[in-house]
């Protein structure tokens, strides 16, 4: 077994561990789509690994299986992004309403950028299926990466405390989407085997990091919050005095 194969297998072993932990902690109630996504990724890996290992399986069969599973995986990832976005706004209904418009515009803008990139940088025609796939994946990565960065910047800008597993999921997918954006941009333009091998390593490596992030967030206890109730009454009065001084001098 080569270390490249090991790098391909290891994230999926971690995904299986995360799936078990999610089931034990009943996290599937909050993130059902994410659990389905992980289970699907494991099944997809098993299928592709089998096709890669069986000598009678043709390259064409592998390519079709790869494309078919990739389409489902992309759709599920959008579902997961929707789920983490719901997690962020779960207790902030007012904010959800305010954010809905911004999210819609962001999505529209990202889709437009993806389409414009596909038109103006259609890629290398040398290997049509792979080249076409890279262009589609590049567009998907633009939208997914953009949405996740938007959600994270939105929470940062407003000072929202977005912790726990939901944030971990968003972070992990964000890392994969960012690396996908960079690697598929190169793949779409440069169709060389040497580059493809190097980029494959990068993609697999980012997926391993992503699985480690998810595992870390599911295992690590949530960082302790500094609760306002610990602040003395004097300090609260100080706030009030300062606010009143500012508002009604």
């Amino acid at each position, binding site marked *: 077994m080569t270390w490249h194969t090991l790098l391909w297998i290891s994230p999926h072993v971690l995904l299986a561990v995360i799936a078990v932990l999610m089931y034990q902690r009943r996290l599937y109630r909050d993130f059902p789509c994410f659990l389905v996504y992980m289970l699907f990724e494991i099944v997809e890996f098993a299928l592709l690994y089998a096709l890669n290992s069986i000598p009678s399986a043709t390259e064409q069969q592998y390519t079709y299986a790869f494309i078919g599973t990739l389409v489902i995986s992309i759709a599920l990832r959008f579902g997961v992004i929707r789920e983490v976005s719901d997690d962020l706004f779960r207790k*902030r209904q007012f904010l959800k309403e305010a954010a809905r418009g911004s999210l819609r515009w962001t999505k529209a803008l990202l889709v437009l950028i993806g389409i414009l990139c596909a038109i103006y940088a259609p890629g290398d025609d040398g290997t049509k299926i792979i080249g076409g796939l890279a262009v589609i994946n590049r567009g998907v990565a633009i939208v997914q990466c953009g949405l996740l960065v938007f959600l994270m910047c939105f929470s940062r800008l407003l000072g929202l405390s977005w912790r726990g597993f939901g944030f971990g999921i968003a972070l992990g997918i964000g890392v994969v989407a960012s690396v996908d954006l960079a690697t598929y*941009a*190169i793949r779409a333009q440069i169709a060389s085997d040497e580059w493809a091998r190097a980029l494959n390593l990068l993609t697999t490596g980012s997926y391993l990091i992503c699985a480690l992030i998810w595992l870390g967030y599911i295992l690590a206890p949530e960082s302790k*919050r500094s609760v*306002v*109730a610990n602040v003395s009454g004097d300090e609260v009065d100080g706030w009030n005095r300062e606010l009143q001084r500012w*508002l009604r*001098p």
Partner: protein
Amino acid sequence: MIITWILVAAGLFALGALAYIATWNRTSATGVDGAISVIRSLDIEAFRNLVDPAEEAFLRCTLSPKEFREIQRERAWAALVYVRCAGRAAVLFVKAGQAAQHSSDPQIAESGIQIAHSALRLRLYTLQAGLRLLGQAMLPGTSNRPLSSLIDQYERTAETLLRLGRLRNEQQV
């Protein structure tokens, strides 16, 4: 090819942004003291004067168009500093409110929800006001709608904070 490298740069930038936000998310504190010092640094009267439409109308009448644009640009930049400070305070109040939501006392938790809610609205208004002021600083003399909503939102946050203070005092008694 240039699009490819722009996208590669965007991917790396996104990766950096995610790492920064993840670090900030784990290390940021509620910063009650910070909120108080930020508020202390703000002079509401000066801010009101800077965004007062009557003051702007007066300046428009008394100054030459060139002078007016220069003064107006400086006023917009100054007001922007106030709005940024108010925005920073709002973020700290959001955090304080969110922390209060985890109190074992249901009334304090309820007040925490209200603080976070009001402070979030204030933050949204400061973002909106910041953009408008930035526009005014770039193109002085364009539409200058009053920014009273910013102050209204802050008053609501203050009222909720007062309520939380009262609750805490009652608890201590």
